[in-house]
């Protein structure tokens, strides 16, 4: 078997990358150790936001990606439940609102629509919220979809362009030839010849990196979600506490007045409606290896925090909980890059919680990199070599 490009990992990044590469005319094989979307992409929430991104490239590519989803929702034959419902940040204190206002002002000066709402407007938009919240940010462009259906949609479409799917094929070795060029991918089922590899293995990307002797600094960062029963409208859109930003980025200097349980587990309230009328309630961030078991203390903390913002939840049942692991990198920007020391080897991983958000633009820009075209954005900050430079300097 011979392919122009082998994509490793059929999560949302690998599925998108395989789609854009196949569409560009390459002969692509997608190799996955389990099923489609059997890792992080089926154990996550369901949104593409700009309001959880830092101003600059983070927001720029997030915004572009949402625009691409809008087009994909029309183009692709498979419905992935996309809708632009907007999202609402809620602030508990004056001080939080002040930080939020500063953040929104910065985003607005970059041309993004974010609207500050006061207490009264907050309750008009979402009447079931607690009455004592100070206000928040409403972001109209923020969108939602079903992440594993997006994966199926990409695959379905890519197959029309000739994509060959190898699920339940685990990559064991990568063979290189003269000048270290990629030659073969060896799986537990056989040998696949190719000159190029795109490593879209997410939290497992560093294990694939080890096979070509490079150190990819991605670590799994766990998050848990509580699924509610089907119920009447609790909220109409994604609602999250501004403290969510504080749990995501370590460099924001603000401490919430929360219980030890909530603080110790780095829990921040978030809820989103799904097409099935269940709600997903989260969330938390923790470094706990590859363990994705549900933890009772975290369930307790998430439920406690959620009721503070939406008291109506107290009578709503949680029917299931799940956890997933995000591919975290220290500077919170994905790696979308070639690897100079390994000719033919590319990385598209490390999106942490933004994989759904950034999948289309990531797939497109990897395709541009491989084709030698100019990328849609200046992605020098997404280069893999940034970690080497950091160590040297």
């Amino acid at each position: 078997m011979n392919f122009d490009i082998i994509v490793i990992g059929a999560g949302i990044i690998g599925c998108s990358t395989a789609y854009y590469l196949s569409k560009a005319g390459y002969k692509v094989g997608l190799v996955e150790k389990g099923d489609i979307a059997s890792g992080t992409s089926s154990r996550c929430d369901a949104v593409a936001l700009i309001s959880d991104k830092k101003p600059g490239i983070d927001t720029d590519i997030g915004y572009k990606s949402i625009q691409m989803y809008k087009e994909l929702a029309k183009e692709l034959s498979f419905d992935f439940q996309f809708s632009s419902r907007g999202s609402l940040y809620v602030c508990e204190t004056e001080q939080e609102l002040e930080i939020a206002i500063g953040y929104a002002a910065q985003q607005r000066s970059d041309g993004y629509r974010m609207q500050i709402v006061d207490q009264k407007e907050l309750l008009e938009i979402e009447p079931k919220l607690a009455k004592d919240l100070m206000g928040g940010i409403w972001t109209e462009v923020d969108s939602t979809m079903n992440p594993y259906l997006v994966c199926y949609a990409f695959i379905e479409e890519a197959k029309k362009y000739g994509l060959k799917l190898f699920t339940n094929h685990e990559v064991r070795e990568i063979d290189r030839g003269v000048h270290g060029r990629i030659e073969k991918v060896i799986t537990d089922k056989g040998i696949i010849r190719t000159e190029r590899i795109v490593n879209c293995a997410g939290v497992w990307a560093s294990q694939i990196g080890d096979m070509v002797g490079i150190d990819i600094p991605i670590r799994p960062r766990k998050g848990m979600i509580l699924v509610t029963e089907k119920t009447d409208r609790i909220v109409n859109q994604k609602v999250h506490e501004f403290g969510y930003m504080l749990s995501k980025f370590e460099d924001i200097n603000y401490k919430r007045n929360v219980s030890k349980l909530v603080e110790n587990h780095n829990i921040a309230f978030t809820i989103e409606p799904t097409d099935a009328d269940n709600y997903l309630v989260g969330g938390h961030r923790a470094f706990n290896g590859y363990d994705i078991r549900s933890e009772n203390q975290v369930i307790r903390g998430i439920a406690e925090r959620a009721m503070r913002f939406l008291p109506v939840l107290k009578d709503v049942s949680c029917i299931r909980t799940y956890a997933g692991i995000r591919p975290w990198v220290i500077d919170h920007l994905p790696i979308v890059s070639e690897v100079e020391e390994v000719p033919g080897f590319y990385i598209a991983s490390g999106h942490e919680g933004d994989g759904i958000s950034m999948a289309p633009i990531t797939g497109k820009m990897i395709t541009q990199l491989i084709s030698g075209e100019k990328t849609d954005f200046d992605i020098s900050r997404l280069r893999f070599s940034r970690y080497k430079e950091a160590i040297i300097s």
Partner: protein
Amino acid sequence: MTAEKTIVCRCEEVTLGTIQDTVQTYCCSSREVKLRTRAGMGYCGGRTCRHVIDRVVAEITKEPIKDEVQLSYRSPIRPATFAVLGGGKHDNES
């Protein structure tokens, strides 16, 4: 009773016909059937129907049912309200 009228997943009202069609179209695992049809994703968390789904998938794909659980249960064991899960005082609170 036809496959179109036989309900396998009662919570999400997924019929035997839908499950059979999905397995035949995508030649997929029980897990993928669940994600594609929502069978087993409802109020009971698949406790009622998951063995039936496994059997239907095994019959069509001709792969024997493995000993390991294909469709896993998730905590909590039965639905519980947020008040029960998150209420009350916590031992570690001062």
